[in-house]
């Protein structure tokens, strides 16, 4: 499998880079848009100022014309004696208006024009400033006379000389002021035309720029999308590869698992064979010993019977000789009989013959017991469960394990009443054989000084309680290390040397008890001993959950 981490990191940084770029583009775009807006707003502010200025300039022009006209009318009135008041008032208002407009345009001022409050700002370009400055200067030069005239109008004492003077000033400057006004307005409209052009250019350029940004963004994101796609493709391929590898690995694992199961069954089979081999070894020993002495005893009996026969024969001869009064060979015959009797007596042959007969009967009993018990072991793969007395089942296993146990431990049995259970007896035999064998093997082989081996104790107890059969097999052997406790049921776990332990005994016990829906408890303390407690349901139907409990050997 390839190493996934570096490519992950790559992808991550790639994505981060992509996002960063996107953000830059978006910012640029927004910047352009805002700049257009800011520019536009700025421009429209300017053009409003402009409009105000134009309005003001118009007012100024009109105020000038009206003032001049009113002054002329007033002079005519003065000369013709017509009323001049209204003309003078019109003049002074217009003149005042003109003055205000001129000041406003020159220096900036808040003005009331046509009931509208307008903030007039001085123009910001030099040409218009100069123009308005010229108008202002002209107005400034005539301002004192104008004020005096206006004052006198207000007092009602009009000085015709002043009027003449004023008129002369107005007429003299009329052309100039009007020209300036005209020029000023033309200049302003030129400026606003410029401004519109500027606005358009800026808008168009902004649009073009935004468009460019947009295109760049599009191109860039297409590229990054492509890259992303490529990465995703690669990812997918990798994933596919990984999936393939996983599938392959799964296959291999399944194969291995199958193999393992095969080996396990094989091993269980081989442990069965090992148990069988062990059993056969024990059995052969167990059979050959009584067979040996029985055979030998029969030979001895035959020999002894021969001797008895001979003695009887010689005895009969002696009796015959005595009865016949044939005293010639009597002494020799008596010697013969005497010798034979001596032999019989010195070897205690009659007693011994009886003893050997009894021994042989005992031996034969042992053999027939063995054969009887073997029947239970013979059906190793029985198909159906049977109702069996568990005590007898244990006894059979004990018999088979006898050759191993007798050198190592004494068996103390404490069997309860009515210990019958529905079970597979041959399998349970195997369970008990394995547990008893382990118990015997756990005995340290010490020898006492008098030569007798120090025998351990294996206590076997059976009880029936609440529909369960409880079997306890306890030894006072080495005990099990707490660290190893959890492993003892694992196949191949063994602490014994090769040849003595396969490590499969308890694994098989586990399997069989599991099959019987039973429970196993192990209690062990190092140096003190081990107790295996098995409980089996009396009826196989009532299956319980199979489990194992581990704890210290408390009592």
């Amino acid at each position, binding site marked *: 499998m390839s190493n996934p981490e570096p490519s992950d990191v790559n992808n991550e940084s790639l994505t981060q880079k992509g996002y960063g770029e996107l953000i830059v583009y978006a910012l640029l775009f927004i910047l352009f848009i805002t700049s257009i807006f800011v520019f536009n707003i700025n421009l429209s502010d300017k053009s409003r100022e402009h409009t105000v200025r134009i309005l003001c300039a118009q007012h100024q022009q009109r105020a000038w014309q009206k003032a001049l006209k009113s002054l002329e009318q007033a002079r005519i009135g003065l000369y013709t004696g017509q009323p001049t008041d209204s003309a003078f008032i019109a003049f002074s208002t217009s003149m005042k208006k003109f003055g205000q407009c001129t000041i406003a345009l020159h220096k900036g001022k808040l003005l009331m024009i046509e009931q509208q409050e307008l903030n007039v700002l001085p123009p910001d370009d030099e040409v218009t400033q100069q123009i308005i400055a010229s108008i202002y200067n002209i107005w400034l030069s005539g301002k004192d006379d104008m004020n005096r005239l206006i004052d006198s109008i207000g007092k009602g004492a009009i000085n015709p000389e002043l009027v003449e003077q004023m008129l002369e000033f107005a007429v003299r400057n009329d052309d100039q002021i009007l020209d300036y006004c005209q020029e000023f307005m033309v200049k302003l409209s030129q400026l606003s035309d410029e401004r519109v052009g500027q606005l358009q250019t800026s808008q168009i350029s902004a649009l073009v720029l935004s468009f460019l940004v947009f295109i760049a963004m599009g191109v860039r994101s297409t590229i990054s999308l492509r890259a992303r796609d490529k990465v995703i493709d690669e990812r997918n391929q990798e994933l596919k590869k990984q999936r393939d590898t996983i599938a392959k690995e799964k296959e291999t694992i399944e194969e291995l698992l199958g193999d393992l199961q095969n080996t396990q069954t094989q091993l269980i089979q081989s442990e069965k064979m090992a148990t069988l081999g062990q059993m056969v*070894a*024990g059995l*052969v*020993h*167990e059979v*050959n*010993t*009584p*067979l*040996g*002495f*029985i*055979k*030998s*005893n029969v*030979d*001895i009996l035959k020999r002894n019977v021969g001797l008895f026969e001979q003695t009887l024969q010689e005895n009969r001869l002696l009796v015959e000789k*005595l009865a016949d*009064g044939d*005293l010639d060979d*009597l*002494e020799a015959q*008596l*010697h013969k009989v*005497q*010798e034979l009797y*001596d032999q019989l007596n010195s*070897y205690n042959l009659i007693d*011994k013959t009886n*003893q*050997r007969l009894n*021994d042989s009967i*005992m*031996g034969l009993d042992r053999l027939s017991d063995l054969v009887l018990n073997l029947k239970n072991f013979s059906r190793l793969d029985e198909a159906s469960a049977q109702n069996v007395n568990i005590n007898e089942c244990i006894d059979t296993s004990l018999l088979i394990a006898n*050759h191993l146990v*007798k*050198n*190592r431990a004494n068996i103390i049995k404490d069997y309860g009443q009515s210990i019958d259970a529905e079970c597979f007896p041959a399998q349970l035999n195997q369970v008990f054989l394995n547990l008893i064998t382990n118990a015997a093997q756990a005995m340290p*082989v010490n*020898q006492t000084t*008098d*030569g*007798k*081996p120090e*025998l351990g104790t294996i206590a076997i107890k059976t009880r029936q309680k609440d529909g369960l059969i409880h079997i306890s097999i306890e030894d006072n052997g080495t005990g099990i290390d707490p660290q190893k406790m959890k492993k003892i049921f694992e196949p191949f776990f063994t602490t014994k040397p090769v040849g003595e332990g396969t490590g499969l005994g308890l694994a098989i016990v586990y399997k069989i008890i599991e099959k019987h829906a039973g429970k196993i408890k192990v209690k062990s303390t190092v140096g003190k001993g081990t107790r295996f407690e098995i409980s089996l349901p009396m009826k196989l139907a009532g299956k319980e959950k199979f489990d194992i409990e581990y704890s210290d050997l408390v009592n």
Partner: protein
Amino acid sequence: MEKPHILIVDDEPLVLASVSDLLEFEYTVHQSDNPHEALSIIKDDRYELKVIMSDQRMPGMYGHELLREAKKIRPNTIRLLLTGYSDLESIMYSVNVGEIFRYINKPWKSETLLNVFRLAVKLYDQMMALDTSKHAKKSLQKELPEQEQPEEVKAETKTVLMIGYSDKVFDHYHSVLKSKYNVVNVHTTQEALDDLKKMDVSVIVSEINLGITSTLDFLIKIKQGFPNVVTIMLTKSIDANFAIRAINDLNVFRYLTPPIDDDEFRSLVDEAFRRSDEFKSKTRLDLFRSHKSEVESSNSLHNKSSDLRSNLKAAQDILSKKKGY
């Protein structure tokens, strides 16, 4: 003469009773069902134990272990093993550790057992005779340094015949032994026979699988023709039945499986040569003891008859009295 003392050891008392009944006409039978007790009987020097037969599987001690101890205490006593189950391991131990004379399986045949004991006692007596003669010789030739008898074995004739090994394997064993012995390698039984006729072979080291002829049968034949030859089996093929026959019929000295330590192998070959030398000197002895025992038993019969005579007289008197009535 006193009947030969023998010891039988078995953890099954019924076996002891039966064997003892079988043998008691010919031997003074000591018995024990406990190997440690048996050891104290072996140490007891009031009797001259000629044969010990032990069971292999016993509580506390294996038969071959007991016999090894017995060999240390009484090296000349003949050792037999009686066993109920012949697993290969115990067979190998019995040859190589117990150095037993015969390996007997249960159930045994009474006739075989009796024969084995007779043979064993004979062998023992021969060995003892050899020992005493050696002793006598030694006391006669006290002035000579205590070394090997020069006229019996000549250094250059010490030949080891190796049968059935590849050249490579042979080369190794040759390099181990060549400093002391003349080592010869043969591949066929015919070659082996030729060499045995040509040379004075004392020790044979043999593989098992030698072509068509059963190796064991061949070796047994050699043993009959050349009784002084001591055989060591050195083979990877181990087989219980084969091993038992090798013990009982070939009297194999060691049954070994390679790899074997070089020094150990050399010292085993040395021991085999010593054994062979013993056999050579033994053939010159005769079995005078058995004749003597026959004479003695007839004497005891005569002693008994003297008091019988008076008893008979009394009986006759009684009988004649009755008749007279």
